């Protein structure tokens, strides 16, 4: 599969931990959106995206993350993103989305 998504609720820290494994592009981003929407529909909370095994992301992935942020920001929840590869991290700088999401080094 081009994308595999692991989502678990971290009870200790009270956030959704999302691990996308593979490529997020126009073909796979709807699935990412669906899965996270469903999670935050069940329980509104912060979201931590672990980018360790995220091999590819483009504007459709960025748009997806913005869409998800809109679902949770009314409750002052945030999206934290960590372990991004340099090539993907760069896209957040280019689009200035490093100011919208909390990018952790």
């Amino acid at each position, binding site marked *: 599969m081009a994308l595999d998504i692991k989502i678990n609720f971290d009870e200790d820290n009270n956030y959704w931990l999302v691990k996308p494994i593979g490529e997020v592009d126009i*073909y796979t981003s709807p699935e990412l959106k669906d899965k996270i929407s469903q999670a935050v529909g069940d329980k509104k909370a912060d979201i931590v995206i672990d980018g360790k095994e995220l091999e*590819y992301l*483009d*504007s459709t992935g960025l*748009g997806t993350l913005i869409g998800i942020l809109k679902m949770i920001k009314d409750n002052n929840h945030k999206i934290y993103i960590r372990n991004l590869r340099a*090539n993907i991290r760069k896209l957040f700088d*280019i*689009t200035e989305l490093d100011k919208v999401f909390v990018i952790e080094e």
Partner: protein
Amino acid sequence: MKSDVFKLTIPSKPDYISVARLTSSCISSKLGLSIDEIEDIKVCLSEACTNALERTDEINITFEVTKDQLIITVDDVLLPENDDEKMEEIHFGILIMKSLMDEVNFSEKGVEMIKYLEDGLHEKEKEL
């Protein structure tokens, strides 16, 4: 020296953009580009294809390799005009292309994206 030209046409379906991406990365690696540069080219080509997707039945891509440039063209890629919310991703896509490629030119036909090859060729020469 005559330039080398590759042409790729894919059906206009989201599922197939990864085929174009992979082909671009294979061509780029033949030119001795670094892994970072290859990743940049992959994402820019994807952005162009994603942009063209809803406007055409087939996406036409060319890769032209000259002595010191890789020139990628994708037909049917447009700059967005009206600024509704759905345009956000398209704007990001264009921002990414303009930031990661050395030159980006829009025309009636589509987009032309250029990556300078000097460093890459040096690297390849060093290897030999």
